[in-house]
């Protein structure tokens, strides 16, 4: 308690800075929530006030006008992409980190260089490719390009983990006669849960929020993912801010919950990027 009396001016300024910045983050989020609970006239009168009567009908309206479909599509695509990306990335990162094979360096450069390619640079051929493969306008048509885009980052995370993985464990397994695959699946993977969790979470966040490729490859409204569905809201329901903010909130809630539950993994995973 005596600490309060000893607050130095520096510390006071630091506190102020943090509080102001946190307010900058929280206040718009608060506005989002408030607007989603009001009807149109209330929004017009005072955008920043509490709603007089909490209006859950905005949420029902949003859900029924298509958010339900978008939500399910996003879930399908996200789960599919994450499973595919992380499993492939685990295999490649393990091979790159632990196995010395001839084209090791080529594979590594291949993955890292393609990581730097912005998807905007690929859109026309990608669009034509998906049409040729009859994959446009489907969830699988999104899962494959997303996986191609997600493998590099997941590989970076898992590679830096596997490099530090103690080789004694693998050596003793080898002495017992295990081959490379048995070592990978029975020993290394169960012990790599934190890194795999981190890769999964980051992939989930990236996939759930992806907009560019979805807007390119999907034209059938029933197949839209959430970001795409949200963006059409702006055109169709131009002045219905209440339901629009409700849909935004619905789209944000799953990741928000995931974030609050798994912060530790995200922070640790990203913090290691400096290596």
């Amino acid at each position, binding site marked *: 308690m005596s600490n309060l009396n000893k607050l130095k001016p520096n510390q006071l300024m630091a506190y102020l800075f*943090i509080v102001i910045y946190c307010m900058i983050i929280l206040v718009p989020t608060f506005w989002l929530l408030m607007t989603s609970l009001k009807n149109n006239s209330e929004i017009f009168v005072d955008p920043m006030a509490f709603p007089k009567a909490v209006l859950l009908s905005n949420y029902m309206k949003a859900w029924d006008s298509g958010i339900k479909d978008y939500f399910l599509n996003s879930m399908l695509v996200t789960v599919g992409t994450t499973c595919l990306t992380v499993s492939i990335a685990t295999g490649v990162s393990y091979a790159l980190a632990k196995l010395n094979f001839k084209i090791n360096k080529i594979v590594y450069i291949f993955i890292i260089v393609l990581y730097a390619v*912005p998807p*905007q*640079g690929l859109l026309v051929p990608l669009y034509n490719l998906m049409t040729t493969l009859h994959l446009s306008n489907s969830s699988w048509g999104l899962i*494959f390009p997303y996986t191609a885009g997600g493998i590099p980052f997941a590989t970076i995370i898992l590679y830096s983990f596997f490099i530090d993985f103690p080789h004694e464990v693998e050596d003793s397994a080898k002495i017992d006669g295990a081959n490379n695959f048995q070592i990978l699946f029975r020993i290394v993977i169960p012990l790599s849960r934190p890194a795999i969790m981190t890769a999964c979470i980051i992939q989930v966040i990236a996939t759930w929020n992806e907009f560019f490729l979805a807007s390119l490859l999907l034209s059938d409204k029933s197949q839209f993912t*959430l970001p795409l569905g949200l963006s059409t809201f702006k055109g169709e329901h131009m002045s219905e801010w209440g339901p629009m903010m409700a849909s935004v909130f619905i789209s944000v809630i799953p990741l928000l919950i995931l974030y609050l539950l798994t912060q530790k993994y995200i922070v640790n995973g990203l913090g290691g990027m400096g290596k």
Partner: protein
Amino acid sequence: MKTSNKSSCIAGIILSLPAIVIMGTFTFYPLLRTITDSLFKFSLISKGMQWVGLNNYIELFQDKIFYTSLLNNLMVATLSIIIQLSLGTILAAITSRGLRKTSALARTIVFMPIVFSSVAIALLWGLIYDMNVGQLINIFDSLGLNAPECGFLGSRYVAMVCIITAGCWQRVGFMMIIMIAAMAGITEDLYEASTLDGAGPIRQFFSITLPNCKNVLMLCALITVIGAFKCYDLIRVLTDGGPSHQTEVVGTYIIYNAFNLSRMGYADCISVALLVIAGLVGVLQLFINKRNAR
């Protein structure tokens, strides 16, 4: 310690195969096609592709909108680096070195916007910037300030600043996390020694913390610049490049040419330009990093 024998060679190849196949098909092949297709003229419905050689590129050099969009990308890159790096570093310094007790809660709050999709951010800030029901105009009115003439998203520079603000709101947390990790790696001894010499926290920040984070700062700058050239979502939803292509960025301009104007060959050409520029910027930054690291 890597295993080196025949079975590990085969295992390595088997494990890498899925990655190579998928990335080869969906990233590498389209990349090659973008480059070759830019020498043609075709659209979604055209029967074949018409060879035009370097005509697309010649047209690109004279395309005013392309230069506008490129400058907008540069604007995004510059402002983003300044805002995100400085705020991220200051926040990281305060939460990891200054006020330890508040750090966990503050970090959670500051990082939160990362999980919002760009579209959600665009819609939210679109509401804030709205001239009728937006919170910003409300604040302006109550403070007696005059709003910009064409609204917050109606003229080039005001709109770009507003868009960049929304983007930074989302991303400062990311920079903060990376900087926190970087600062955690600085040994406490340095700080103790400087305290004995009478250095206060601010002096320590500039003389110890910042210099020791130089490499990570360069990395953050690189990530930010690459992100600036990839930006698309926010602009597409907030202004769609308008009004009259004033807030166009290269990403949105490519889409405009490919699908609104149906000029796919030209769109490929712009894509190649984007790839080259992004590549050059990346190489330049890596070069600067290497020089600084010595």
